[in-house]
């Protein structure tokens, strides 16, 4: 029997049978009842047999296909999955916020009340009061034309129409203080555009907890935020949950974020729950091969590089055209013939309390204690052609000295007078040698991408020098010489969706850089064939268009395009951050293999510290356009010297619940200062946790004198490990 809802007026058909009535009879599809047990006393939300489908041009998209779970009061349920796994659709159907073209069936009961039969009007009495939601992108979640105070007031008044004006203001201030917004009273009058992203997310959380909801649904609440801000917001969310005693549904693709916050975890794949267990069990002994893959495919930020990453082969399924059997079968190393015929249900695992998995091979996995490395084939990495050659003996590919880049700030009016400067890159010095990967890491606005663009510019920088292969790019040179320089340096962008022309077939995309070099048609064909094999794509597919490839494949094409002219240096700007976790590993492996085979050097920009730790040999940490610490990756991660690096590393989410729970985070105060601000002393001084422990005299030094990047004679520090802090020694001994 189906329960039916459109977003408009509910279809209160007499045929509708509400699941789980007083007598406990739930009429559902047989496979939906497999999830055992009736909801217990303290269950605030119980979802049974939830199915959501949308009509689309490609056919009916089955976004959610039978999800069951119970949410207990005060507990946190983490829903993990990649894009298209149905996790957000699940949360939106709980809120009743799906588009009107969606078809929802099954049962969602909140405190025993069926939600799916309610009309929009009836649901709005529950939304915000019983169930509240925090969305992914704080920049667009607040109405730009209303003040924060008005929006807070609305959240309170809609459910408490009798509340007096003073009470509303008092409560709003209280809530803003709770989520850690300073000067709450004044900030009520501010508008959203006057807040940073992290601050806006705090406001959204404050609005969500305004009416003490029973359930808070947080849909990727920190994905759009920087690591240090992410740590702050997670802390606020935890505090908000404690204050209200609400149950939390935390949706994310990042297992690291969820490890420290969730009690139970539901792993979703292709619209279904494929594994469900208490958080420790999921991380310690996952059963479903997909869960194993998710956990194993991500590099660990808290541990050194242990070897090659293991990607999950293939790509996610098309929800409009699902194959028969288990949707993961085509990517699963354990799949047998039966997996392709029957889709398994979420069943309890024998011998494991509270763990469920939807896998026909679960008995095999449990019996033989199979782990990630047993299930997935760990590949061999190719030997580097520079193996055994010390770094000092390799040629310098790129040498950047005291690079500066400022952008003028102009005033309004006719003349557009210059009223200030943004110091995007401020005194950056770094070098890259053959066959190595140098990573630039930092939060948004730290100047990483600008540094890359300045190098790519191949022109004399505003200040400082850039040398490529020993040649100053600012020097006068002939067109042919410059072209040769261009040939040896290439760029890979973050988003493979927008960096490849959607109207050019792959052949033309790959041929373009070669045509510029006047390569003959025959050679081009040969080279393209070679390139497609190099990036592990089928050479027969060169006549296809970029949209016909998945995200990971498209990034491979972008890499192939960069490799076409045999460059010696590739600049990579966040090359894997737009990719799903299971795809990421494959691209990282490819990059490593290519480096080993071809000896190409990478300058790699990323904000994801675990990826950096895995791939780079050297790392430079940037803050406000300056390098605050640089050195060999292992050395910097193991023995960070600069207080900012320490804070950054401690804020990093670790995909291990035990470590995450004990992780001591250095909470940074405040926000990144505006880049337009003129900072005389150390740029980090305003947020530095070390500075407040210093004497007044020492603090004065921080505020007036910009520290140089130096090794400061730290005992035991590795070669070339430098930090830009006056009190590096104090910082090192403090840890």
């Amino acid at each position, binding site marked *: 029997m189906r329960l039916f809802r459109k977003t408009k007026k509910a279809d209160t058909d007499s045929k509708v049978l509400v699941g789980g009535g007083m007598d406990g009879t739930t009429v559902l599809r047989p496979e939906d009842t497999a999830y055992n047990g009736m909801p217990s006393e303290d269950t605030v939300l119980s979802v049974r047999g939830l199915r959501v489908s949308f009509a689309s041009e490609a056919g009916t998209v089955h976004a959610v296909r039978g999800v069951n779970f119970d949410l207990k009061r005060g507990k946190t349920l983490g829903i993990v999955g990649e894009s298209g796994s149905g996790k957000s659709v699940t949360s939106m159907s709980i809120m009743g916020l799906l588009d009107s073209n969606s078809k929802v069936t099954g049962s969602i009961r909140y405190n025993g009340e069926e939600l799916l039969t309610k009309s929009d009007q009836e649901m709005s009495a529950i939304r915000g009061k019983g169930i509240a939601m925090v969305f992914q992108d704080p920049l667009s*979640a607040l109405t730009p034309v209303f003040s924060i105070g008005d929006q807070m007031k609305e959240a309170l008044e809609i459910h408490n129409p009798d509340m007096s004006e003073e009470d509303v203001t008092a409560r709003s201030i209280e809530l803003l203080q709770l989520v850690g917004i300073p000067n709450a009273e004044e900030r009520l009058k501010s508008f959203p555009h006057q807040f940073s992203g992290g601050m806006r997310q705090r406001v959204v959380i404050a609005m969500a907890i305004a009416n003490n909801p029973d359930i808070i649904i947080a849909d990727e609440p920190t994905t759009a935020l920087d690591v240090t801000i992410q740590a702050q917001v997670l802390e606020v969310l935890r505090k908000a949950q404690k204050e209200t005693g609400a149950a939390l549904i935390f949706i994310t693709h990042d297992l690291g974020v969820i490890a420290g916050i969730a009690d139970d975890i539901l792993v979703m794949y292709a619209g279904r729950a494929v594994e469900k267990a208490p958080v420790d069990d999921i991380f310690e002994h996952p059963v479903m091969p997909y869960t194993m893959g998710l956990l194993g495919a991500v590099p660990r930020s808290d541990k050194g590089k242990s070897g090659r990453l293991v990607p999950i082969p293939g790509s996610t399924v098309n929800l409009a055209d699902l194959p028969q059997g288990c949707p993961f079968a085509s990517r699963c190393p354990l799949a047998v013939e039966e997996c392709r015929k029957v889709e398994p249900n979420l069943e309890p695992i024998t011998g494991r309390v509270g763990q469920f998995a939807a896998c026909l091979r679960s008995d095999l996995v449990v019996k033989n204690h199979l782990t990630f490395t047993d299930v997935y084939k760990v590949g061999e990495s190719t030997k580097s052609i520079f193996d055994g050659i010390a770094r000092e003996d390799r040629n310098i590919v790129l040498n950047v000295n005291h690079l500066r880049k400022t952008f003028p700030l102009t005033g309004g009016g006719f003349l557009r007078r210059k009223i200030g400067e943004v110091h995007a890159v401020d005194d950056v010095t770094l070098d890259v040698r053959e066959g190595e990967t140098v990573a630039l890491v930092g939060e948004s606005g730290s100047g990483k991408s600008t540094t890359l663009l300045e190098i790519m510019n191949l022109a004399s920088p505003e200040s400082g020098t850039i040398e490529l292969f020993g040649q100053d790019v600012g020097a006068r040179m002939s067109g042919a010489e410059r072209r040769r320089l261009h040939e040896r340096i290439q760029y890979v962008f973050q988003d493979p969706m927008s960096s490849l022309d959607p109207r050019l077939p792959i052949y033309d995309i790959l041929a373009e850089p070669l045509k510029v070099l006047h390569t003959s048609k025959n050679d081009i064909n040969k080279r393209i064939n070679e390139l497609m094999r190099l990036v592990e794509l089928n050479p027969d597919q060169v006549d296809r268009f970029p949209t016909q490839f998945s995200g990971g494949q498209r990034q491979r094409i972008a890499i192939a395009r960069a490799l076409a002219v045999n460059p010696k240096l590739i600049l990579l700007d966040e090359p894997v951050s737009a990719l799903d976790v299971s795809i990421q590993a494959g691209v990282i492996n490819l990059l490593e293999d290519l480096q080993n085979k071809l000896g190409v050097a990478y300058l790699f920009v990323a904000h994801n510290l675990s990826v950096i730790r895995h791939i780079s040999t050297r790392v430079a940490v940037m803050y406000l356009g300056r390098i605050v610490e640089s050195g060999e990756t292992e050395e910097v991660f193991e023995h960070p010297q600069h207080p900012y690096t320490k804070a950054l590393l401690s804020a990093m989410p670790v995909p291990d619940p035990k470590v995450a729970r004990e992780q001591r985070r250095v909470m940074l105060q405040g926000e990144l200062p505006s880049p337009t601000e003129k900072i005389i002393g150390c740029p980090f001084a305003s947020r530095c946790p070390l500075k407040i422990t210093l004497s007044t005299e020492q603090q004065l030094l921080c505020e007036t004198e910009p520290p140089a990047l130096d090794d400061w004679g730290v005992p035991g520090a590795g070669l070339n490990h430098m930090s830009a802090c006056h009190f590096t020694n104090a910082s090192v001994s403090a840890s």
Partner: protein
Amino acid sequence: MLKYIVKRCVNYVIMLFVATSMTYFLASAFMDPRSNYMERHPHPPIESINRSLTNANINDQTPILVRYWRWLKGIVLHWDWGLAPDQSSVRQAVGSRIGASVQLVTIATILSIVLGVSIGVYTAIRQYKWQDRVLNMVATFFLVIPAAVLGLFVALIAIWVNTKTGVRIFYVTGLHAYDGGNPFMWFVDFLQHIFLPTIVLLLPSAVGYHLTQRTYLLDTMNEDYVRTARAKGLPLNKAIRKHALRTSLIPTAVNVAFSITGVFTGAVITETVFAINGLGRYFTTTISTNDINGSVCIAAFGGLCTLAGALLADIFSAWLDPRIRLS
């Protein structure tokens, strides 16, 4: 804010002065009032033509700068906008027509905004439902139908209604017929006259606002912040009205402001159909009769309307959206 408006107004006065002066030079260069007389058979004596033209300050034998200076002095010192080739005063002609035009245009503009925006919102919320489809079809119909056809059509229906009922409910010509002293009767008479031309002016611009407002609202309706508002507990319709409508009104406000001039001078067909002496008809007459002073006066009036509209649009946008700062 006040300082900004004052600054803007000073800017606008300068702009208006430059624009009007340029129109004066252009009109003087292109229009040939002498031909009005020369085309007659037999044409009047040259001296008498020259006398008439000089008297109206449009004689092409007088240096242009001298004429310009006289014209400017007349406006600045006496608010005298000069004479038409037939020696009638431009100021009086425009003055008497502005009243009729304002009555006609103001009512039609306000009603068309209210009606168009409301229907736009109504249909946006019901996108692809039957109400939306029907109203869109109606809108397209009125959008493509020429004003003259619509005018005659409306007039015919009114006459049919009048003959069917045997009572003269609608007047199809002029704006006033009652000359008694009863203000109520005067008002009823006015309504009977204004009703038909208002409908003809209103329909095309209302459907225009309907279609654009629908698009603007559909754009903002799916914004994340509308979803946030719903998540707070606002029902769908309220969330849209409160959170999406405001930002979507900004482009409409700008449209309205810049359409004011067009409405004044563009009502010419409606004015012709319903025999109303308005600015639109005057505008075409000035051009066809080589009336330099008259057409410059209309251009100045149009410029004034545009600039006033621009200022209103700025103020209205700033009021709607706090991110826009007037400074």
